[in-house]
């Protein structure tokens, strides 16, 4: 091999040296050389404590307190005898699993090293160390560990797949091809886990083939991988490049346009066992998402509750739980979940907006206003938040405040579509209400002028909305009952009432220029003859 990756050894040193120091310490305390194999039984208390004290726990300051506490609890537990007589190595491995979940890859690798050195003959820890080394980019170290597991009955298949992947990342596509069989193992594709393994194998074969210039082979493998794992949209990218290499530009463009970031997920039983909580909560959230997509909100809510029982700080579960509770009318529960979310992500403007809406539902207008203003502070262009704040102020009788919010909303180029229509209609109604006149023709000139401008803008906004939604399924604009049509017709009528027949005629013509529901078109046609050209 000509290439010596200097940096990988530099990179590895931090984690590896920690582990080596720890093991040396453990051996010294036990009165044995460091290379001797420690007993897998319960180590003496001083050994446990010394190992834990030597390990440098990373700064957890930025983590959510509950998560930091969980890591610290698991770390402190390393010094204690296990209540169930469990293995110390397993506890170190559990710490590694928790650390890597929260982004502490190097300390996780160091913890895995300790587990491996405590029980050198245990393939589980070899595999764990390999996976973590893989994640930290030390592919040489990972590959060595995977290679040692190829014949292992339990880890052989996964180690082979991961090694093949590492070889690809190390620039050895030929080695990837040689490691992986072309054909599936017998019965492999008959169960979900086997299909994922087959899809992963095929995806690696496809990428290796592409790297070696075999575009035809790459398309065959990647197409089959996508049949087995259609959710793995990351495969569309190499597939597109393979079609491109074959000169099939149309298929290439089509595949490239579908590229995404989901690869073929492998279920890893070791990491699952080491952190059942995490995996369990994750799976429950996935099931909840599927239930929600299928329209079963009650089931989704139940699944989110169970996920939170497993992992109270799971953001996806909290978000989903709040949403389903709100959908089911359980505002109190939704509020609790939303407030918990804000403890974890205080700068998320969407969550503040949701809190404001929930408070509005309960008519707690002061709390709602505070939440909406916080959302706007974080995201000044948050149109829905500003509109809701305007409605809140209007309903509270603060017409000036509402008008100010609406003006800011309408001044933003981002206020478009239905929000723009609604904001204009509300603004128009506020102007008319403030005038408190008997009829539009009695309005003060300035108010009438402002109303006329808003009415024209309203018609324009409805026309834009209709054009943008032309042909869009479920847009609702096809129905004559859509509030946008009613608002536009009312605006044309207002212009006529204000004596602006020419403007009303122009607005009606503008409205008639888009595809209108027949009932709306009849009303427009009825209006037009009465207007001076």
């Amino acid at each position, binding site marked *: 091999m*000509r*290439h*010596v*990756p*200097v*940096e*990988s050894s*530099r*990179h590895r040193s931090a984690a590896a040296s920690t582990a080596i120091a720890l093991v040396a310490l453990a051996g010294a305390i036990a009165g044995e050389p460091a290379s001797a194999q420690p007993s897998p039984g319960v180590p003496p208390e001083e050994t446990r404590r010394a190992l834990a004290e030597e390990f440098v726990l*990373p*700064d957890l*300051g*930025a*983590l959510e307190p509950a998560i930091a506490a969980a890591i610290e609890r698991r770390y402190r537990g390393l010094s204690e005898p296990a209540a169930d007589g469990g293995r110390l190595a397993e506890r170190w491995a559990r710490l590694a699993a928790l650390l890597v979940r*929260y*982004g*502490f890859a190097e300390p996780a690798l160091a913890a895995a090293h300790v587990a491996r050195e405590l029980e050198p003959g245990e393939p589980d820890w070899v595999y764990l160390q390999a996976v973590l080394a893989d994640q930290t*980019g030390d*592919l*040489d170290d990972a590959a060595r560990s995977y290679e040692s597991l190829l014949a292992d009955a339990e880890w052989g298949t996964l180690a082979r797949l991961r090694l093949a992947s590492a070889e*690809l*990342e*190390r*620039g*050895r*596509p030929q080695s990837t091809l040689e490691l992986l069989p072309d054909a599936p193992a017998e019965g492999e594709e008959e169960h979900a886990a086997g299909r994922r393994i087959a899809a992963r194998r095929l995806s690696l074969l496809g*990428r290796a083939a*592409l*790297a070696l*210039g075999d575009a035809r082979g790459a398309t065959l493998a990647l197409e089959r991988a996508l049949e087995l794992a259609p959710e793995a949209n*990351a495969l*569309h*990218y*190499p597939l*597109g*490049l393979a079609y*491109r*290499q074959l000169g099939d*530009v149309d298929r*290439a*463009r089509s595949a*490239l*346009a579908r*590229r*995404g*970031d989901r690869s073929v997920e492998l279920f890893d039983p070791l990491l699952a066992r080491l952190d059942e909580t995490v995996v369990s909560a994750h799976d429950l959230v996935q099931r909840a998402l599927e239930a929600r997509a299928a329209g079963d909100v009650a089931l989704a809510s139940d699944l989110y509750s169970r996920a939170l029982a497993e992992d109270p700080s799971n953001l996806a579960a909290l978000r989903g739980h709040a949403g389903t509770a709100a959908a089911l009318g359980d505002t109190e529960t939704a509020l609790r979940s939303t407030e918990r979310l804000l403890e974890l992500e205080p*700068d998320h403007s969407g969550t503040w907006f949701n809190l404001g809406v929930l408070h509005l539902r309960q008519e707690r207008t002061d709390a709602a206003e505070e939440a909406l203003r916080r959302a706007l502070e974080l995201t000044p262009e948050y149109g829905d938040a500003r509109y809701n704040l305007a409605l809140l102020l209007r309903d509270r009788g603060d017409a000036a405040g509402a008008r100010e919010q609406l003006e800011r909303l309408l001044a933003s180029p981002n206020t478009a579509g239905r929000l723009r229509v609604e904001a204009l209609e509300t603004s128009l109604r506020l102007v008319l209400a403030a005038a408190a006149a008997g009829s539009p023709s009695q309005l003060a000139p300035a108010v009438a002028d402002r109303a006329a401008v808003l009415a024209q803008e309203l018609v324009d906004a409805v026309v834009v909305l209709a054009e943008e939604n032309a042909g869009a399924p479920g847009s609702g604009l096809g129905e004559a009952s859509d509030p946008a049509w009613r608002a536009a017709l009312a605006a044309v009528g207002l212009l006529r009432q204000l004596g602006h027949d020419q403007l009303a005629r122009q607005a009606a013509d503008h409205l008639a220029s888009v595809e209108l529901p027949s009932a709306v078109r009849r009303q427009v046609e009825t209006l037009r003859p009465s207007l001076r050209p």
Partner: protein
Amino acid sequence: MSSTKPSVHTAATTARLVHAFASMAFVVWAAAPLLADDDTPLFERLEAPSAPEHVYRTGASGERYLPEIMGGGGALLDFDRDGDLDLFLVQGGPLGPRVTSSERPADQLYRNEMRSGEPETLRFVPANGSGIREGEYGMGAASADFDRDGLPDLYVLNLGPNELWRNRGDGSFEAVGAAAGVDDPGWSTAASPADFDGDGWIDLYVVNYVDFQFHRHRQCPAPSSALDYCGPLNFPGSADRMFRNLGVDSGGHLRFEDVSRAAGLLSPEGRGLGSSVADFDRDGRLDLYVANDQMANELWLNLGTLDGRTFVSFSDEALLAGVAVNGRGEPEASMGVATADFDRDGDLDIFLSHLSEETNTLYVNDGRALFLDRTAETGLAVPSFPFTGFGAVWLDLENDGWLDLAVVNGTIKSIDAQRATGDPLPLRQSNQIFRQLPPDPGSAAVRPGTTPDARFEEISHRGGEAFTRAAVSRGLMRGDLDDDGDSDLVLVDLDEPVKILLNTWSRRRSGENRWVGLRLVDVHGGQAPGAVVRVTTTNGAFTALAHTDGSYLSAHDERVLVGTGTGTASAVDVLWPSGRVEQFVLDGDRQYHTLREGDGRTPSRNER
């Protein structure tokens, strides 16, 4: 010729010639001697008082404003046309909503006072009469002869309005950015000057990063530490600009026109940090590659002048070309960009520097602007995984004919261990040099576009202190500062003195490999960025791009320096940006030649 763009360009003849030019039979280079394994570092630092005493000041105040960690760079240019390279360096300084420009240290132009043929007299002194006064927070610079007076002008990229400094020829410059219409007010990070429309005037493409506003500033939590710098996706993107050079009007004023929209070049979400102009698809028109941070990169293929428009149009074909995202389909945090024909197959390949845990990326061109990510196969992936790369240049360290890479690093997220020591800028990483290994003797011919034998090895430990001591490195310029025929570097580290790094090859091994240097002058007497040269030697041909753009926040030596190994250069074919192909006979190598468009011989059809 296969091409991904519509065949709307009328100059079909030119396109055919270009194809013939570029598809000359590839010659496998005989194995060159390996780099000597002696103790002399590859680069030695020019020390004070010969080196400029310039420190790029970040102004880091603890607020963690993103611009603090994104500067700075500069430009290499021979502003006084005395034959050697001078140096312009931008400055940062205090940063904050109430900081005024007068509080900031000034950018500085340095004159190279080396005596001809005496590299040991290399010395940079402040060019105090330049008249350049910059109060904006500086990022980088570009250089080109925009007004066609034969003198390089200077375009300064700022956080805030950019400035164009027009070279008066008497050692002073005049600020004309606003009057010329190129005072882009955004946060600019790169610029590619080139004559995109072939009208003889050098146009200007300006890359903008994000819409940074102090009133929207906040800090972002890192997973393993306290509050830190926010990444680019926390800010709205900022659109790049294409300025068409309208030339000098009757009053002597240089004018530009913003043609971004008309040219189809507006991508408001782009968070660009680098750009490179070159004819990637070899159709005779200059294309543009834009490196974007944490989002897809763009490859703007030049479609020529459509429908009687006054300027050329572009179409982004990066996704199909395979250079939008890496080989796994993932967008990366692209920072520096370096373009060259590293594999000697006649087309231009692209190297990008990236964030740690992403690896840098090498896109290899198959000659049709269809690229494959060959980072892992060439050995460049694993060594770059822990590093966040910024400046990146191709250079031939020992003139063996195989281009090597220099990449300078410095992370953007605090390193806990450094922060724990109280380091005010805990982002330090060491820099890297990758040497391209020549193909094994007797190996099969290299297949264009597949480069099965291309391989790099990291030799950073041999680079000298600038490559072994950790710093926060950003701008990296390449040029032959002492005119000794090898590529030197200028490195800008944050809050540290700028480093002039002189290549020691000419001293160590000057008796072996050969080289030729080329200065290209177009038919109007100006520079020719985007021109491609093919140097014919006794041991095969070498293709090289004339350019000053690329790397990060930097502008390079406008001259083309080609290492030819043991081959003696005899002739050069030049494909000028105008589309003209000319052949020049060289009367010797190991020297610089000036090639003027129009003075060469037009090769016959058979010769092409």
